[in-house]
Every structure is written in C-alpha cells, then in structure tokens.
C-alpha cells in the first residue's frame, strides 16, 4: 500500500476548497430543481392537452439524456453567444444540474399531489375556496409532506453528480483531487480522500432523510 500521510495532509485543504464549489452547486441546484419541479408538476396538471404532451416529452428528453452532454451543450451554446461569454462555468453548472433534477423532482411532486385524498379537494370546493387557494392552502401543504423525503434523496443524488461539472472545468472536489494528483502523483491520497469526503457527507444525510421519511409518513 502506498499511502503518504504528508501528501494526505497537504491535499486536504485543497480538496476542501474544491468542496465549497461542490456545496454551492448542490445547494443552488437543489433550490432551482425544487422550484422548477413544482412548476412542471403544476403545469402538467393544468395545461391543455397538446401543450401538456409537449411538456411531458421535453421532461422525458431531459431525464433520459446524460447530464454531462447537457452541461457541455449549454456551456458551449452560451459561449457562442457574444453577450454571455463571461458567464461563470459554475453558474451554468448550477442551472443545468437544477433543470436536470427538476424533471425528477416534478415526478415526486406529482406523486405527492396525487396522494392527497380527493375528499380534501371536494371539501375545499364545498367551502367555495378559489382554486388557487385550494391548491396553495389545502392540497400543497399535504402533498409536500409526502414529497420532501424524496426531494432530499434527489438532493443527495445531485450532490453525487456534481463531479460531472468537471466537464465544464468547474474546480469542484474531484477536479481539485485530480489536479493535486496530477501535480504530485499522489493520486491514491487525493482520490481516496475525495471518496471519503463524499461518503462522510452523503451517508449521514441519507440516514437523516430515512428518519425524516418515517417521521413524516402519515399512513
């Protein structure tokens, strides 16, 4: 086993600096995905049939094509537009990863909204609440209860997908590990530490989400 503690100690601060970008991408991406996912879920429920079909096709398309290719696509497409050359790669990454995962989250929202008993809808109609208030004050709060744990799971999945930002040269955790390895040949220490950091961040979060899931479960 080739393991050098000095290299490991040297790598750690560099990796943690990269980790900041990983966290930014995860947090901003999750916020974008959570908002956009809800909008998609509501749009699919309310829009007329032909445009609904179009939205669903687009969602399936984004869902079933690789995130890396989407990242490269948007990154290069932006760099072709003269006004947008200076847009930072990290911003592009956050937006693309957010849109990619919004297609997954919209499915969770849909399932959550469907799980609200129809009686709730009927009661709100009987009380002559306007449709918007029925949705925001009656249906959505109950739907979110069922949705939040699965949104959390997608946030963890997104966290593990942030290394793909390497493709558009964002210096996040894995990229900084690779750069450190490239300059010192201490690949073992760099990548092993990167893996440990991922595990240390994602495993407790998954356990937390599991507990949240049990706590929020209504049935």
């Amino acid at each position, binding site marked *: 086993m080739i393991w050098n503690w000095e290299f490991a100690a040297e790598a750690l601060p560099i990796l943690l600096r990269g980790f900041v970008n990983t966290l930014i991408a995860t947090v901003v991406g999750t916020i974008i995905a959570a908002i956009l996912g809800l909008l998609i879920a509501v749009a699919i429920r309310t829009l007329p049939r032909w445009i609904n079909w179009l939205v669903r096709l687009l969602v399936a398309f984004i869902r079933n094509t690789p995130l890396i290719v989407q990242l490269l696509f948007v990154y290069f497409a932006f760099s072709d537009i003269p006004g947008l050359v200076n847009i930072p790669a990290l911003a592009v990454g956050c937006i693309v990863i957010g849109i990619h995962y919004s297609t997954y989250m919209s499915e969770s929202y849909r399932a959550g909204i469907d799980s609200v008993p129809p009686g709730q809808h009927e009661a709100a109609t009987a009380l002559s609440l306007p449709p918007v208030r029925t949705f925001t004050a009656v249906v959505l709060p109950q739907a979110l209860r069922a949705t939040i744990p699965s949104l959390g799971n997608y946030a963890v999945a997104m966290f593990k997908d942030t290394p793909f930002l390497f493709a558009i040269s964002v210096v996040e955790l894995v990229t900084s590990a690779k750069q450190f390895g490239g300059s010192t040949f201490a690949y073992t220490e760099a*990548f092993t530490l990167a893996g440990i950091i991922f595990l240390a961040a994602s495993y407790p979060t998954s356990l937390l989400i599991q507990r949240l899931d049990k706590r929020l479960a209504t049935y």
Partner: protein
Amino acid sequence: MTDNFTTLLNFLPQLWEGIQTTLILTIAGSIGTIIIAVILGLAMTSPHAWLRIPARIIVEFFRGTSLLVQLFWLFYVLPLLGVDLDPLMCGIGALALNYGAYSAEVVRSSIKTVNPGQWEAAIALSLSPTRRMIRVIFPQAWALMIPSLATLLIQLLKGTAVVFFITLSDLTDKIQQLRQSTGDTVFAFTVGLVIYFVMAWLIQELMNLLERQATRRLGRRRPNSRSDRRDARRDAREELRLDRLKSRAAANDGASKLGPAGQGGGL
C-alpha cells in the same frame, strides 16, 4: 443547414464508432450491474450476519461515493497499486460497481416484498433453501424489480458519458468532434442527445418486454398493462353509454308524459 447535414453524413462512420463504445459500455456494464446486484442483494437478505454485514458495507460504500470518484480511482490509483486495467475495463468496472450497488438495494427490497405466504408454503413443501430461492422467491421478486432496474439501467446509460474523462472516445466525445467540424453547437448536441434518447427508449422497451415475460411466467398480468388500460377504457365507455341511454330513456319518458299536453297546448 445543408452544410451541417453533409458534414454529419461524412461523420457517420466515426459517430457509429462512438455509439459502439457507448453500447459496449452500457451492455457490459448492465450485465455486470445485474450480477453484482443479485450477489449483493441475496447476501443482504441472508440470515447470516457474516454475509449480510459486509454486503451492506460494500453497498453503502459504492452508493455513497460518486461514480466519477470510483472511475478515477480505478483509472489513476489502481496502476499505482500494480493493477493495470485498460480504460474500457475501468469504465465497465466503475459503472457495474456503482449501479450494481444501487440495484442490490432494489434486489433486496424486492425479495423482502414477496408475499410471506410464499416463503411459508415453500418451507412447508420442505424445499431446500436454494430451490426455494431459485424456483419460488426469485422469479416473483424478479417481476417486481424490473421497473426499478429499468430506471437504473437508463441511469447507467447516462453514466457512460463520464468515460470520455478517461480518454475513451464514446458518443459524447464524438459529439464534441462533430461540434468542432460543423462549428454549430446546437446542431451537434441535438443530434447527440437524440441518439442518447433513442437508446434510453430502447432500454425501456426491452425492460417492458422482460417484465411482461416475467409476469406471464408467473401466470399473472402486469399491473396497469396495456390490455388492462384498454379494458378499463372499454368499461368506462360502456358505463357512459348505459348512462346516456338511461338518461335518454328518462327524458323520453318525461317527454312522452308531457307530449300530449304539449300537443294540446299547440292546438
């Protein structure tokens, strides 16, 4: 635009090479995924702690670290430890280990959700544990796990795009070459994304076929299958027709009662 298409036509042989690399990775990765998933999944349902606990640790390890970390570990670190794999093997290995760990969880939960009566019946018939698993439990669990496996295999297809980081020339790499030779980002990437989309659709169709086959072998209907939906639609239509007939009959009834009076009013 016509320029783009002639470039694409000239580029087709190279594009096909890239597609082949992606297909090899997807197919070999899927086979590896399913083998690893079944082994680890069965180990996780084992009554012996010495099988269950290591399997759980392996699964959590590969689920918790990122695919790219695993890929780079195989590609950069293993040679330092004296194991030299070629890039294609690294790619297949990383994909199989990562998605195998996710799928192992699917296998485990499917085996756990098979009706407990089936376990009891197999024990009552004094089938050996191996035969019980192979002949009774696994076929039923298999039908349950296919939809989730389909999702994971599509994820795997999407994951194959990472291999261009380790110098493999897959579809993603070819798309970038196409982008450079046409100078049209939108065109090149649209072509590439559509190819990926079609491949994902093929995986979905294949898994649907497998699911139909698996449920048929159990003598069951697939839940919400096409024929189920057709039947439901037919029933709904029939009900609507009866409803309409009934209301028309009621209206006629009312009309015939009113009829003479109406005529009378006319007169």
